[in-house]
């Protein structure tokens, strides 16, 4: 059933996967004026739970990750294991009739601060973009805007899509969870030049992504 799962995930949610996570069907601003054809999506958030390999890499670098509000840290037993970012705005094309072409972009609220012996890095203005299942991202690091490299690859077919029927016209909660996120060749190279040889590869799951939002169908 792997083909079906991939199809359903990228088809039904389309641009929801990866960067624009739960982007609005249609293309106007996230949660903005109701879209007469496709409806709107609101109250969205994205959560990344770091894998044990990622946490080990943080330890190896003696790095501490903090989160900048309104992003929040996810903790387990007093240890930060992830972060949740509210979606400020998003647009996307779910490509319901052409699944591989799902694309979109988003602006996430909040940010991440990494403290390490070699310095302190503050990442804000996170603007992820999805194209062909590759997530790239522009962001501001220590006040300087970065270029958008292909940072992450999302294993869309391995995630779970959750939505339960609601009465006609009522808001529908949609969640996608346990989507593995891998580094790309580009992000590995960037990491190596900044921090030395990483302990992970392009096949290492760095985090698991969960996203949720409320879909409001178009009005009658």
């Amino acid at each position: 059933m792997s083909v079906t799962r991939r199809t359903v995930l990228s088809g039904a949610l389309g641009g929801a996967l990866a960067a624009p996570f739960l982007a609005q069907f249609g293309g106007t601003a996230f949660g903005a004026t109701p879209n007469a054809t496709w409806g709107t999506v609101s109250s969205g958030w994205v959560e990344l739970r770091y894998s044990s390999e990622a946490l080990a890499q943080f330890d190896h670098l003696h790095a501490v990750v903090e989160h900048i509000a309104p992003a929040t840290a996810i903790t387990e037993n007093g240890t930060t294991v992830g972060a949740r970012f509210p979606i400020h705005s998003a647009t996307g094309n779910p490509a319901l009739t052409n699944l591989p072409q799902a694309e979109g972009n988003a602006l996430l609220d909040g940010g991440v601060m990494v403290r390490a012996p070699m310095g302190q890095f503050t990442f804000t203005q996170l603007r992820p973009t999805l194209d062909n299942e590759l997530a790239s991202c522009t962001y501001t690091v220590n006040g300087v805007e970065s270029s958008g490299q292909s940072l992450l690859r999302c294993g869309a077919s391995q995630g779970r899509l959750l939505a339960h029927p609601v009465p006609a016209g009522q808001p529908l909660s949609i969640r996608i969870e346990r989507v593995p996120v891998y580094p790309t060749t580009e992000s590995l190279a960037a990491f190596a030049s900044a921090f030395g040889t990483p302990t992970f590869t392009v096949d290492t799951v760095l985090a698991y992504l969960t996203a949720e939002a409320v879909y409001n169908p178009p009005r009658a």
Partner: protein
Amino acid sequence: MENEWVDVDASELCESYELCARVSQDRLGPVWTALELLPEEARRHATALNGFAVWTDALADDSEPGVRQQALARWCADTLAEVRAGHSDHPLRRAFVHTMRRAELDVAVLEEFLDATRADSAAPPGFVTVADQRRYLRGVAGTISELMTPLLGPRTGDAVRLMSLLGEVCQLGDILADFPIDLAAGRCYLPGEDLDRLGLDLEDLRSGRRRDALDELIAVQAARGRALLEEAAPVAGMVEASCQPFMHAMVLGTEAHLGEVERLGWRVLVEGLSSTTSAETLIRPRREPPAGLRIPGHVAVVMDGNRRWATQRGLPAPDGHSAGGRALMRLIVSALRLGIGHLSVFGFSTENWSRSPEELARVFEAAAEWITRAARWLQEQGVRVRWCGRRDRLEENVASALAIVESMTSTNATLTLNVFADYGGRDELVAATRRLAAEAVSGRIRPEDIGPEDIARHCAAPDLPDVDLLIRTSGEQRTSNFLPWHLVYAEFVFDPTYWPDFGYPHLLAAVIEYSGRHRRFGGDDADPVGDPVAVEAG
């Protein structure tokens, strides 16, 4: 994916593929739209093949005969040399050669295409027989279609032959659509024996004289195209699942094109037909019920015969389900054309769980494919989708996707499509009874107050209206546990057609039969006011 590019300059190759895409997009129209349904790698290579074919075709039609012969001869020679060498520096052929090499496509088939194109360019066509015409169709189009086959992950060897046939039908459709252009240039791609039999000459075709004979001429061509298409259509289920939507789109598009040719009749000779216009009839069907018909408000269909359709053709059962999905698309388009308000389709009974897990997996895979692929189109047509039946045995992702599509389409009102899958009528009534009993036990309803509306509100779709017309395909004459509550006054039509072959003419025939029936709803009166839509004449 990365390995694919190591032997060539990636940026130049990318540019070449992009050029092929631009060339294809400009010339292929709806076929380009269908190509976009392919997975990325298959799409890229298919685009290279089509871009090359379009470019070659343009060279064959371009400039003065002497000049183009020379240019085409050189083009063909260079192409073959580069394909054999596995390398090209030409801006367009670079991608084509890469695709030929990468997919190990048959150079002999390419030679056949080039030879046929050169022959067509050198002299006006002069087909004496249908067999002559078929050789031409095979040469200029069947070949390219055959070359595409390995890109689509064919499961059987017969897919190659059927893909070639599909290419032939597409080319025949082009011939029928391009009549005015070709006739003005003194070219007629019809078999001479067809014209002779009807006593027609080229001037008759140009002028539109003798319309009855011209109508027959066009009908014969369209019927021949339909016969070829019927033979070719099973190929849609013989390729990788991810490529099947493209194949279904090609089959449906070709059907729609031939349908438009039939509708135009002799006029296609003088007016021609744009493939975009044909595609519009499929993509955006107009509501145009025949005058004087009483259109049923709620049509229910038991889509029976997928497996027998497949068996009849020596195909595995999943191929029948795949073709059945295409027929469902055709049914929705037909319902929109007739202005039917509610369509209920029975696709998967609770009893079907006794079938093999492989077959069930394929059915669900096909259903999920279909619904997610069609969701955008359904929404644009104003179709509300409802899944009626158990969901707990659906794979979680599939069930969730359905919930999203249902939500997205929930306020549409042009047509309500009720998909009854993993549903059984007795189960539905038992469940409704249990819920009512629970209400009675809790004191929310008194047993003596229970009425039909209380049963209805606990059915799978509480606001589902009574069925006016039930159609069952494949010749079986029973309801098979489908909608026992809603069928009480339904008119039944049993059609011997296997479901994958069901289309607009079959639905129209059933509606005509329904329209002629006298409905009394258990009383003595004739059809009461409020019975479904009566279409005014004119």
